[in-house]
């Protein structure tokens, strides 16, 4: 049987213990896990939703730019990180299942191993308000 790479397993274990919303994609950019903190933000736990493709994810949660337009999948920080092997950062809004919009800052970084990129992690933070500075 196929087995998740150890680096993804350990990343999931770490993310499970965090109170910061965090998302995990595999080497193909498929969302394979998000933690309970992310589930609170979205209004649905990962165990309820399961692995979903980009189209379904976009229809459920967005994300959306400042004009309320959907952000193309290829431009999402997680996708940039896993495809380019580089960190990526963005600010956008996501919509939870009750329709509430949340503006968040997202930092994503790739999981690089001896066998190449195995996926990427994204961490969500509430978007900083103007003038907070730090």
């Amino acid at each position, binding site marked *: *049987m196929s087995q998740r790479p150890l680096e993804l397993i350990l990343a999931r274990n770490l993310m499970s213990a965090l109170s910061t919303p965090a998302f995990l994609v595999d080497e193909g950019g498929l969302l394979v896990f998000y933690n309970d903190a992310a589930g609170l933000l979205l209004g649905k736990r990962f165990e309820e939703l399961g692995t979903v493709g980009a189209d379904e994810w976009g229809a459920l949660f967005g994300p959306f730019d400042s004009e309320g337009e959907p952000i193309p999948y290829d431009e999402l920080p997680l996708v940039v990180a896993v495809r380019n092997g580089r960190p990526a950062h963005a600010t956008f809004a996501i919509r939870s299942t009750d329709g509430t919009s949340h503006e968040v800052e997202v930092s994503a970084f790739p999981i690089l191993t001896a066998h190449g990129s195995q996926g990427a992690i994204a961490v969500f933070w509430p978007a900083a308000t103007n003038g907070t500075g730090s």
Partner: protein
Amino acid sequence: MDVRLWGTRGSIPSPGPETIRYGGNTSCVGVTLSDGSLLALDAGTGIRNLGLSLPDEPTRLHILLTHLHLDHIQGLVFFAPAFRAQTEIVIWGPASPEASLRDRIGRYISAPLSPVEVRELPCDVSFRHCPETEWEIGSARIHAASVAHRGPTLGYRIEDGGNSLAYIPDHEPALGADLDALEEDWISGFALARDASLLIHDGQYADREYPEHVGWGHSSLSHALSFARRTGAERTVLFHHDPLHTDEQLDELGEEAKQAWTELGGEAENIELGVEGAGYELPARVPSATATG
């Protein structure tokens, strides 16, 4: 496939009257494949006696290292066949971005830690990083995969004659994870151990000891049993005993393991603690004739 335990202890050799039954030598398991090929799983101090048991004649053998902590390589410079010119040894181990396998092992087999250098060994020795895919040694198919421990660490699955041996001596699959709830493909080492005929697995700590050792890279008894149950291993040998555990304490741990295993629905005779010198014969299994369909 014949399997023999030459060293069952973890961390550091622990000889003495308190450890005489389970043994004080560190990790080493000898495997004789159905075609006669010889494997040594790890090269802790137990490999010294394995070497002494081999006849003084031309020999080719493979040493499969899970990782390079000292309790898994310390016996290399006391392995008698390595000092015979007619011996060919292939040492397999985990890759690291930091240095080659030869260079990393060479840090131990060199001054001031060792009186000899790798280049001085009379035998024909070579070093190979384990491939990501399966490969063959003699009559066996070997599969190696990274497992949860400190530093680059592998577990092995050896399939030969219709049997499978899973060897994961240093493993903490429950670190930050609930083994009873996780999906199978998210459990470290699962694919190596799935339905194994014989699973040799880390069982270093009693449950009461584990909280003081979270993240050290080893399993509690309950975690080891959960892993064995989830993977469906037919028979499980708990291994890598803590050096502080006396024979008496290991007897108690063994009884605890059997009781817990039966409560999980298993049969008591299929769970045991590894004893230095113990052997396991895995006779070749003939494929079912009905499978020709």
